[in-house]
């Protein structure tokens, strides 16, 4: 009882307080006097709360977390920058903070460096920096971090790069003792990165262990090319004027920034002179020294002392702090650390050569006995000789490992559409067909990821270099080719390129008779797999040797059919069917041609060109024929499975079919995609999401799969991700309107009617609805709201249904929205009578929720054996 009174009072306190703080001061008093007229203690309580509320800046305003991050730090974690969701702070650098983030479009982890406003407010500086960093990111070297994007969101500038799992060289130096050969492993990679950059005319300017990352697999990545331009201090010594450096000043960047970097400065940097590539060599030498000894050669108690040491002092002999590092290593480091840059290695290429010599135990160019140094004692010398032998031995073993590592098999490849070198459009069809067949042969191989047709055909007629394509498609190798035909002679030139190292793995020119095209295709697939150094299983061997027809004309007709089918246009399906039939006529045992027929009929049915009762049986017949000829083809198994559940409502049979297809070819994206729609309808949402994501992994570029991702989330009632995916799909292809339906439905479920209607009307316009129809719908919504809109839509849909096949299911859904339970159920029954395939989602469609309690609905579920 007492409790009740208390909570009632508290409810009043809250209510009055909340109302009061919304009011301006003058009205507030009157309001309080009125609201608490009967209870002065209530008024006192509320006034004290208001006073607390109005207290300026109390700790409660910022979450514990923000305080921890520091007042100046930004509360970015959990927020989004562009399409990136910020997950965690990784560290702070001279120009800003680095976060781990998720790329919501590509689903991968990235690192984001957010430039602090100090730097981003200077447009000129920003421009020079992005220019240089862009140039560096174009280097595409395995030891240089890959920059994905320079972005800007609401005035915040950021750089998106690959996320590197691993630790900085700084940490590595602090936590592990490295022997000479371990140091060389790292040093050679850093030098290779610098070499590539210097050859492209880019100087790093800020080489230090903090800017070098080591991955657990041993791969080294050099970060932050070009960034140094942002923080480089104004000349501090007896400065020769450097136009570039002098645009920056100490005051703005603050001495703290320089503190961190001074130990790795070259003497010319410390003097404020113009720097060139040789400055990087010096900084690298400092890092190398530190890797060997664990200590920095010029670090002193104060910045001034450190700079003095850089300018004047020779680094202490390695032997003072470690037994690692032989005389040859010492010589290399000393040559990198010469005060006078004319005496240093003149290019990092020379330094790289010496590091490699060290590794292989050969004499180094830097090796000149240093006169000024005391010779080590005899005992030390003997010990050193032993250590050197050990190091050489380790280097040889490491080299062997490294060698086999760099020649390991390539695990992913993309075949770019072969270019038609003639003007003849027939050759084009042939070139496309050949490309597709090579893809199909390779895709069957067990140890290789091959980008599917739809992913690579975006590159058709696009002048793109293999490196860019390789990066975009996330593969290690690219196959490019061109083809021409003169009468009966065809010429095909091919190149297989390792895009990681930009080197050609294989290239060949084939001059063949047209009649030999089938054998040529096999030969190409085999050559490619050989040159990727794949180890083929006997099943793989069989796949490569497999030929689906021996009839060149049948092959040509089939290729034409596929070409049309791939365009997925209503008007092309009919023609594609004609070509597939032609192929079958030439070779009645051509399983793939039957499979093509099945695909066409299914597509025509699902886009509504023909009614299910016509399309599905035809598709089934074709798929069965294909399987009768070749039971190992995943495609017809997939088609058959789809028909089995979608049309025949045989749930168990459908699933079995998908599983069989996926066992035959786990990389067949359509099987995963259609299996996902099945799982979704069965209410197995998690599995459905996993399946559709797998399809998307296999073909990240497919709009149709993207649409089905949205659909899967919709049925799983996860409307936010459904909308997110829609936006991604639209991002890839703004003209793809089919996904808008799922967007509209998702908005509807969230109660966002304005947005839902916008999406629907936009989709209708893109599909070619008359402007007056769209206007009428918009007017109906404006005049009589959500229900008014659907009443108008109902009218229009019923009119349309008199002209062409419209699934009664759609009409049922509209009645459900309008709250017309009886009519909705009546139309669902009609959908059942006409065997509409949409009924398969009866159990999961949110719009039908109001009908679920009705016995007629239960009966319907029973009729299609979907009752739980």
């Amino acid at each position, binding site marked *: 009882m007492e409790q009740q009174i*208390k*909570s009632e009072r*508290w409810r009043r*306190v*809250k209510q009055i*307080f*909340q109302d009061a*703080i919304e009011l301006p001061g003058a009205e507030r008093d009157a309001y309080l006097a009125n609201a608490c007229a009967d209870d002065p203690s209530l008024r006192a309580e509320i006034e*004290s*709360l*208001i*006073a*607390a*509320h109005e*207290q300026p800046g*109390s*700790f*409660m*305003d910022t*979450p*514990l*977390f*923000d*305080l*921890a*991050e*520091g*007042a*100046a*730090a930004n*509360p970015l*974690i*959990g927020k989004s920058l562009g399409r990136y969701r910020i*997950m*965690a*702070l990784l560290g*702070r650098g001279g120009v800003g903070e680095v976060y*781990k983030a*998720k790329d919501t479009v590509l*689903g991968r982890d990235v690192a984001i460096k957010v430039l602090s406003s100090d730097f981003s407010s200077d447009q000129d500086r920003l421009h020079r920096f992005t220019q240089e960093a862009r140039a560096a990111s174009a280097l595409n070297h395995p030891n240089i971090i890959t920059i994905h994007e320079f972005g800007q969101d609401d005035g915040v500038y950021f750089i998106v790069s690959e996320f590197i799992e691993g630790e900085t060289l700084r940490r590595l130096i602090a936590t592990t003792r490295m022997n000479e050969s371990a140091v060389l492993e790292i040093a050679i990679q850093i030098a290779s990165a610098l070499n590539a950059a210097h050859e492209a005319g880019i100087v790093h300017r800020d080489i230090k262990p903090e800017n070098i990352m080591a991955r657990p697999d041993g791969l080294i990545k050099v970060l932050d090319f070009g960034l140094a331009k942002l923080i480089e201090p104004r000349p501090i010594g007896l400065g020769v004027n450097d136009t570039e450096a002098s645009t920056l000043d100490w005051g703005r960047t603050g001495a703290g920034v320089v503190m961190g970097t001074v130990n790795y400065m070259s003497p010319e940097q410390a003097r404020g002179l113009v720097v060139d590539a040789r400055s990087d060599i010096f900084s690298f030498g400092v890092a190398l020294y530190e890797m060997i000894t664990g200590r920095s050669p010029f670090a002193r108690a104060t910045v001034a002392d450190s700079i003095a040491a850089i300018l004047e002092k020779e680094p202490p002999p390695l032997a003072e702090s470690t037994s690692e590092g032989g005389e040859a290593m010492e010589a290399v480091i000393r040559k990198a650390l010469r005060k006078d840059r004319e005496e240093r290695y003149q290019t990092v290429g020379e330094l790289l050569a010496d590091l490699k010599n060290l590794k292989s135990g050969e004499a180094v160019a830097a090796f000149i006995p240093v006169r000024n140094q005391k010779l080590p004692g005899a005992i030390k010398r003997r010990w050193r000789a032993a250590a050197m032998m050990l190091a050489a031995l380790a280097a040889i073993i490491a080299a062997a490992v490294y060698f086999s590592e760099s020649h390991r098999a390539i695990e992913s490849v993309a075949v770019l559409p072969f270019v038609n070198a003639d003007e003849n459009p027939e050759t084009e069809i042939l070139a496309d067909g050949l490309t597709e067949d090579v893809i199909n042969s390779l895709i069957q191989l067990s140890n290789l990821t091959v980008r599917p047709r739809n992913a690579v055909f975006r590159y058709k007629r696009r002048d793109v270099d293999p490196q860019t394509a390789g990066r975009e498609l996330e593969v290690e190798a690219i196959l490019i080719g061109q083809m021409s035909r003169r009468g009966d002679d065809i010429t095909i030139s091919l190149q297989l390129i390792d895009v990681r190292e930009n080197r050609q793995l294989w290239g060949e020119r084939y001059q063949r008779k047209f009649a030999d095209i089938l054998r040529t295709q096999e030969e190409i697939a085999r050559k490619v797999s050989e040159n990727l150094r794949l180890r083929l299983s006997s099943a793989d061997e069989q796949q490569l040797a497999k030929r689906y027809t021996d009839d060149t004309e049948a092959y040509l007709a089939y290729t034409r059919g596929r070409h049309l089918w791939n365009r997925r246009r209503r008007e092309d399906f009919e023609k594609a069917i004609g070509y597939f039939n032609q192929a079958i006529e030439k070779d009645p045992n051509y399983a793939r041609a039957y499979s093509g027929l099945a695909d066409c009929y299914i597509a025509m049915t699902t886009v509504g060109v023909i009614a299910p009762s016509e399309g599905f049986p035809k598709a089934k017949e074709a798929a069965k024929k294909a399987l009768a000829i070749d039971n190992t083809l995943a495609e017809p198994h997939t088609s058959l499975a789809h028909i089995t559940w979608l049309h025949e409502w045989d749930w168990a049979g459908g699933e079995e079919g998908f599983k069989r297809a996926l066992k035959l070819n786990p990389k067949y994206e359509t099987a995963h995609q259609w299996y996902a729609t099945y799982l979704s309808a069965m209410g197995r949402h*998690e599995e459905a*999401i*996993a399946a559709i*994501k797998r399809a998307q992994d296999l073909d990240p570029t497919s709009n149709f799969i993207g649409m089905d991702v949205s659909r899967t989330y919709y049925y799983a009632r*996860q409307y*936010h*991700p459904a909308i997110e995916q829609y936006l991604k799909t639209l991002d890839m292809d703004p003209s793809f309107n089919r996904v808008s339906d799922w967007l509209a439905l998702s908005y509807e479920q969230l109660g966002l009617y304005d947005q839902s209607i916008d999406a629907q009307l936009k989709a209708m316009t893109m599909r070619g609805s008359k402007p007056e129809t769209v206007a009428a719908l918009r007017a109906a919504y404006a005049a009589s709201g959500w229900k008014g809109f659907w009443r108008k839509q109902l009218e229009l849909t019923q009119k349309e249904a008199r002209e062409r096949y419209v699934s009664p299911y759609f009409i049922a859904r509209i009645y459900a929205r309008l709250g017309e339970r009886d009519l909705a159920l009546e139309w669902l029954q009609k959908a059942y009578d006409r065997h509409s395939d949409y009924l398969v989602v009866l159990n999961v469609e949110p719009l039908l929720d109001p009908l679920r309690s009705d016995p007629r609905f239960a009966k319907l579920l029973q009729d299609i054996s979907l009752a739980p």
Partner: protein
Amino acid sequence: MTPTPEEITRMLIAWNQGDERARDELMPRIYDELRRLARAHLRRERASHTLQPTALVHEVFLRLVDQSPVNWQSRAHFFGAAARLMRQILINHAEARRAAKRGGDAERISLSDVDHSTVKQEIDLIALNEALKKLERIDPQQGRIVEMRYFSGLTIEEVAEALGVAPATVKREWSVARAWLRRELSH
């Protein structure tokens, strides 16, 4: 047996879809991981004693959960649950320190970052916790809101999702709770 990230993710999704059993299975796992990390953190930072509770929660989230299938609602649930655990860990720690100081002052945890903070804020966590307990007796929902906003750094929208109420409600309740706690602590 330790569940894999996939299992944890599945539990999280199941919980988001209303399966309370999944929640019960999940909590101890989150707690263990949070406590482990918090300990490591406190050890590492003993001298300056800087704590980054939300950063810890994020770290645990990243460690435990397979990110790709997780939507933002599930994420909000995770952070909502972690907020209570984080509070527990922080208070336990503060109390242990106080006990160790043989009845000295209540533990004050400095929540500032050496490099960047301009204002050094000191918060008496134990007093805050006492006040929060009192508030919870009057209004349990407000207690949860404070926990999530303050100990886990969730936004209004995320708290709304985790509690299954409208954002406007969270906003209103938060302003009352904040005023109430301020008043309580200024006494």
